[in-house]
């Protein structure tokens, strides 16, 4: 069964290749069904491999499949191989599962798009790359997938590339990710220079045997942190993710919520012995990056009016949770949260996509309201996702978030406190979103408040052009009202919602805290963690206190949001501060730095290129031209002149031979 592992990425890859050749001919909806079938097949293959792995005893759950030697270059020998262990197969399971559902959803969502088959082509390529990323048995394979998902992310964010904003959002995602990729690459170089191999098996064994010095391990870990911060949208490289919402909503759900952005978390769990071998302060750095990201992104999410932007910042915030879980040594909790987050955030994104679909491409929450009466299935499933992310028991988000906060409590009280505030804010902004979209009075026939009067003074121009999913012609109709009422989406879209909602409710059962026997995920992942998981020996009282406190926080957040947005007790402007709406000006600061001093630097480089580089090239060219002009007079065009030259040349050659001859 384990031999089937190559099928897992091969099936979506085959789907990609088929669509590449036949995509246009298949058209809608065959292309979509084909892609979905490829993904479903991949999911079944993953289940088969999972069952095969389950058959083995706990400490023998490693399987390495080498397909061929990929890079044989001197000392560097890299195989194209797959590593099957509990960690990679866990990732592969939920990736293929969620991806299948999102493929199915996209069949409905992308209905009528002129590039229908191309969308599924990219989606399949993405899935294949993501699976190579998690299944690769060495850093280079992971990097291959890492770049592959980056490319697909770029292609899919700018899928509707005819709009300038979408194209530049894709570019932004790409460029920001390059910074992170630089970190990953240098980490690879450092690894190879130190141990002469890139395979995880070698890296892990040398880390544990102490062959890698603490300082080297620190360097590798920090460089990987740079890479992970780029891919997983951590401070300060998170700026691309909100803009990436310009892509179609299924893309946001699959790439920018469930799978790709968790690659950084996966990477750290994969190389956990390196983190363990590094200096003590390295986990603290990771934890602080994570918790600050969680907090900052949560505050920003509070003041967003675009339904997808809220979810985008929420994703960043949740990724922050995963990072400070890693920093606290809670690897199981981090993966647990990755899984539950994949379910409920994919659910929320798909739900928002359904809302946008039903609202005829309206994304501004201020123009929604009372939608649960018009879209009952979407509304019900969205509410499930809301309760899950807000951390209300017994929904899955509560269990994973509580786990993380418990480890944080044991690790550092400050991180726990900040994380708790972030959790409170999470409950608040998600409740705000649900109340604005699904409760209250319908508002789609009202005109938007004037920009100046908008909460937090958030200028519309900031939100609108960057997040528009629609053709420009439809944008112009905004000031008028929608003629039609919202409608529920087709079954291809609601079915994934229902399935994901079910998963979001029960996924908490993967790792229940009550007795050690219920730590299914913890036991399952144990072989991949090499005992680096932190041990929390807190009393039951502490555990109950932490859990109770997070429930109180969640309910407080919900209640506060209800007071503000349902009861209208306070003016929402008090909470939606300008700094929040502007994202703490982080993005605009980047823009200003790059446009100011950075711009001058680029101008200098451009000048250097124009003057020195081009000058050298042009100099060679003009030198050749001058020489040619001088030499062309030799070319008389008379055949007899040429013959004379040949004759004289023969004389010279003959004379040379004469000098060489011995008499």
């Amino acid at each position: 069964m384990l031999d089937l592992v190559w099928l897992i990425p091969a099936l979506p890859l085959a789907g990609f290749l088929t669509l590449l050749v036949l995509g246009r001919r298949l058209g809608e909806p065959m292309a979509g069904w084909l892609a979905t079938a490829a993904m479903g097949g991949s999911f079944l293959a993953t289940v088969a491999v999972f069952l095969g792995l389950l058959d083995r005893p706990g400490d023998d759950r490693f399987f390495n499949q080498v397909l061929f030697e990929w890079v044989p270059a001197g000392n560097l020998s890299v195989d194209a191989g797959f590593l099957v262990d509990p960690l990679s197969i866990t990732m592969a399971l939920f990736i293929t599962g969620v991806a299948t559902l999102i493929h199915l959803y996209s069949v409905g969502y992308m209905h009528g798009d002129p590039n229908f088959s191309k969308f599924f082509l990219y989606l399949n390529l993405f899935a294949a790359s993501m699976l190579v990323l998690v299944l690769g048995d060495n850093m280079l394979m992971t990097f291959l997938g890492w770049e592959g998902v980056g490319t697909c992310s770029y292609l899919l964010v700018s899928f509707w590339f005819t709009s300038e904003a979408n194209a530049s959002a894709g570019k932004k995602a790409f460029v920001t990710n390059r910074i992170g990729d630089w970190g990953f690459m240098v980490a690879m170089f450092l690894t190879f220079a130190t141990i002469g191999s890139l395979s995880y098996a070698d890296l892990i064994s040398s880390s544990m045997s102490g062959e890698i010095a603490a300082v080297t391990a620190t360097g590798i870990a920090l460089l990987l942190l740079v890479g992970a911060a780029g891919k997983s949208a951590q401070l300060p490289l998170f700026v691309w993710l909100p803009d990436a919402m310009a892509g179609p909503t299924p893309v946001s759900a699959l790439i920018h919520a469930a799978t790709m952005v968790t690659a950084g978390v996966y990477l750290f769990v994969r190389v956990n012995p390196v983190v363990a071998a590094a200096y003590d302060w390295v986990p603290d750095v990771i934890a602080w990056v994570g918790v600050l990201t969680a907090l900052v992104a949560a505050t920003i999410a509070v003041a967003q009016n675009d339904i997808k932007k809220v979810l985008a910042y929420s994703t960043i915030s949740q990724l922050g949770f995963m990072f400070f879980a890693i920093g606290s040594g809670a690897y199981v909790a981090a993966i647990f949260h990755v899984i539950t987050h994949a379910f409920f955030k994919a659910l929320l994104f798909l739900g928002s996509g359904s809302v946008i679909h039903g609202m005829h491409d309206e994304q501004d929450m201020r123009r929604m309201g009372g939608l649960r009466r018009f879209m009952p299935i979407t509304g019900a499933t969205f509410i499930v996702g809301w309760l899950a992310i807000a951390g209300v028991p017994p929904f899955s988000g509560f269990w994973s978030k509580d786990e993380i906060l418990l480890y944080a409590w044991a690790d550092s009280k400050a991180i726990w406190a900040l994380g708790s505030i972030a959790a409170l804010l999470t409950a608040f902004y998600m409740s705000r979103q649900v109340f604005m979209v699904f409760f209250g009075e319908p508002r789609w026939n009202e005109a938007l408040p004037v920009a100046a009067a908008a909460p937090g003074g958030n200028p519309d121009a900031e939100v609108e052009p960057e997040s528009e999913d629609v053709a420009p012609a439809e944008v112009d109709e905004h000031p008028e009202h929608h003629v039609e009422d919202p409608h529920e989406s087709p079954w291809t879209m609601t079915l994934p919602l229902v399935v994901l909602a079910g998963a979001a409710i029960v996924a908490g059962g993967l790792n229940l805290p009550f007795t050690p026997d219920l730590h299914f995920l913890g036991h399952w992942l144990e072989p991949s963690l090499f005992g680096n998981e932190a041990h929390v020996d807190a009393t039951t009282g502490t555990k109950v206190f932490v859990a109770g406190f997070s429930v109180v926080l969640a309910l407080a957040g919900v209640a506060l949001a209800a007071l503000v947005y349902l009861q209208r007790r306070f003016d929402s402007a008090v909470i939606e501060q300008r700094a929040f709406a502007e994202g703490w000006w982080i993005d605009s600061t980047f823009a200003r730095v790059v446009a100011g001093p950075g711009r001058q630097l680029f101008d200098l480089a451009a000048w250097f290129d124009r003057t020195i580089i081009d000058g050298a090239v042009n100099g060679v060219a003009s030198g050749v031209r001058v020489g040619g002009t001088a030499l062309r007079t030799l070319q008389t065009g008379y055949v007899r002149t040429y013959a004379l030259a040949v004759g004289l040349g023969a004389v010279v050659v003959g004379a040379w031979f004469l000098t060489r001859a011995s008499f």
Partner: protein
Amino acid sequence: MEVTGTWYLVLAAMLFTIGAVGLLIRRNPLVMFMCVELMLNAVNLTFVTFARMLDDVGGQSVVFFVLVIAAVEVVVGLAIIVAIMRRRPGATADDIALLKG
């Protein structure tokens, strides 16, 4: 006085030189072609001479091939000359200078 191979070779060298100089100083393409034939004959003569000097019939084989090549060359060359002369009657080698830089 015995006639050695060297005599023939000297004669061939003189014949070759005359042909080469003729090629360089004459402008009529037909005559230039004849000069090329002179040079080819000079080389043929050396081949035959060497064949006898070294007692190797291979030299004569080469002469045979040179004869064939010469025939081929004359056929194609004269065809080209005819094609040119048809368009520009009385043209000499100096009238055609398309390669002038």
